[in-house]
């Protein structure tokens, strides 16, 4: 088999895997942004929260899966608490207030992280049976855990699509995004819907942090990098569109990977160049609603 082709395909695999993880983080952001109209800068902090929870709980109970089982409901609760305490104030406010509040949250979370977990870099062990690597060539193997991660991201993508398109709740969410007042006057408690969406968004970001923890490392400031790329994904895909976030994330993953290989000098820019190109072609993003 032609080595050139093999390595090209492996790079495609790398790009897709990166994109799928990005989707997981960005999906929460696009939900909160699109459905609730809130710009949540603290989204990266939720990702960090998930990673640190996975790290500390895995240390405590010794099992990665157990820590996931405990951490997910925990982050949902934290999400609900934050919504009730802070985010509820933002629904009718201008975007600037949202930016200010959520930026403040980033700072608070960073300090809390420093106080509770310290400033060292940590790692989370890959759970036992997923530790293997599949040899692809005589020098390169592909970690099974990354394949597992991609599978999980795909499953969640499917689940989200099902939720939004095929369930009553999804219908309510979509309606609430288009016309909040109308939904309320139909007797549906839109506040409850928003609470659910917000908790879901937080849980998605935190879960992404959790399953990425074994292959990423857990360190201070890890949320900031992924936050910026997530916003790019959301903007490219169209605000509020899960389908858009999925496609946008895959595009970014591939662009980033191939940018590094073929144009390393400008690799840092490829993502933003891509965003500019998409916006020139489709100002509302790939699947965005124009004027929303």
């Amino acid at each position, binding site marked *: 088999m032609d*080595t050139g082709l093999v*390595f090209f395909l*492996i*790079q495609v695999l*790398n*790009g897709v*895997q*990166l994109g799928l993880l990005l989707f997981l983080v960005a999906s929460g952001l696009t939900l909160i942004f699109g459905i609730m109209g809130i710009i949540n800068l603290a989204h990266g902090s939720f990702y960090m929260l998930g990673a640190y929870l996975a790290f500390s709980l895995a240390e405590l109970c010794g099992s990665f899966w157990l820590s996931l089982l405990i951490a997910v409901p925990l982050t949902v609760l934290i999400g609900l608490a934050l919504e009730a305490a802070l985010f509820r104030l933002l629904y009718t406010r201008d975007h600037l207030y949202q930016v200010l509040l959520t930026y403040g949250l980033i700072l608070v979370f*960073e*300090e809390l992280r*420093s106080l509770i977990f*310290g*400033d*060292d*870099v*940590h*790692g989370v*062990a*890959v759970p036992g049976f997923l530790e293997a*690597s599949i*040899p692809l*060539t*005589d*020098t*390169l*193997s*592909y*970690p099974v*855990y*990354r394949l597992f991660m991609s599978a999980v991201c795909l499953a969640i993508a499917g689940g989200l699509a099902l939720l939004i398109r095929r369930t009553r709740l999804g219908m309510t969410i979509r309606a609430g995004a288009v016309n909040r007042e109308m939904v309320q006057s139909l007797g549906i408690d839109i506040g409850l819907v928003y609470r659910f969406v917000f908790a879901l968004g937080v849980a998605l970001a935190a879960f992404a942090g959790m399953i990425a923890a074994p*292959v*990423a*490392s*857990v*360190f*201070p*400031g*890890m949320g900031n*990098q992924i936050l910026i790329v997530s916003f790019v994904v959301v903007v490219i895909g169209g605000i509020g569109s899960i389908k858009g976030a999925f496609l946008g994330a895959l595009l970014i993953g591939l662009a*980033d*990977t*191939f940018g*590094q*290989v073929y144009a*390393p000098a400008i*690799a*840092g820019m490829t993502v933003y160049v891509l965003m500019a190109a998409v916006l020139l072609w489709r100002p509302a993003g790939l699947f965005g609603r124009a004027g929303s």
Partner: protein
Amino acid sequence: MTRRTRKPSRRAVLAGLGASLGAGAAASFLPARIAIGQPAKIKLGLMLPYTGTYAALGKNIDEALRLAIAEAGGKLGGREVEYVVLDDESEPAKGAENANKLVARDKVDFLIGTVHSGVAMAMVKVATDNDTMLLIPNAGVDAATGAACAPNIFRTSFSNWQPGFAMGKVAAARGQKRALAVSWDYAAGHESINGFKEGFASGGGKVETELVLPFPQVEFQAILTQIAAIKPEVVYTFFAGGGAVKFVKDYAAAGLKATVPLVGAGFLTDGTLEAQGEAAQGLETTLHYADGLDLPKDKSFRAAFRKAAGRDADVYAVQGYDTGQLLAAGLAAVKGDTGARQALVAAMEKAEIDSPRGKFTLSKAHNPVQDLYLRRVERLENKVVSVAVKALADPARGCKMA
């Protein structure tokens, strides 16, 4: 209904103004220090990262520096010490502003910092513009004791070139000829790789490919795939902190550890071994410090640091400690007279520091001339294997003093 608020009369206003001005004038005659007869404290301006990615390093440097001064009796040259602490957040954009705060507003006698090379270069500029003494306890940017060297600038850590050159020599001695280098696309990465290139070339070897990615990205899969395609004899890398953890783990997970030897500057495995786990075992790195050094000073320092800080010392703590020792040596020679600049600089230049890393002196460019150790990872330690290069001095290219 109209409310008549009584506006203060002109007389009252003038009287009040006069009184406050008078009080202010009187106050300025009060001595800044009420204690009569005591010499002013030496102000040390510590500009280090206390938050962010490098926070652990900043804190270690800070505590080890204070430990060194405490061991010297809590005084430098007979004078008490006052610390002014500033968190630079490893933010190069704010570096100049922060350094100016310490120099112009707080009027520190010594500017000490920092970890991040970008911030350090801003501090170098401020120190040069204001002729303030600057001691660098970590940032390895070559220029600080190279093109931007100055009599008032000292470094007690290393230059990025040193560990790279040492590892290049090691690889060359092994007869390796084809190497690949990986790092972030920033000054420290390039300088480290250039050092390796020079050392490697001494044995006729060549760094065929340099793969860099934007700082601080940590997605290495694309690069690992490229390394597997190129199949070099050895891969040299410079990463630190979170990036180092991820790179080592990803390298092992991609099966490359078994097929393509990985070597690097010591920061690849310093402070990261717990997080890296099995993936780091057996990795070889070069650095000016190691675990298992059979030196009495190292043993006593480690015990003292553990007692003072409650955690183990690392290379950053050693560097902070030696900064304190250098200050003590210099100020003892001038008996605390921070105004005697020439004598102070001369004393510091001649100092032989009894460091936990081994004794070292300073080059003409004010960078340590020190032994570079080859280390191998054994469980949770970077065990010293041998001295890769003895008494290695940075070439200080572009320095007018060297």
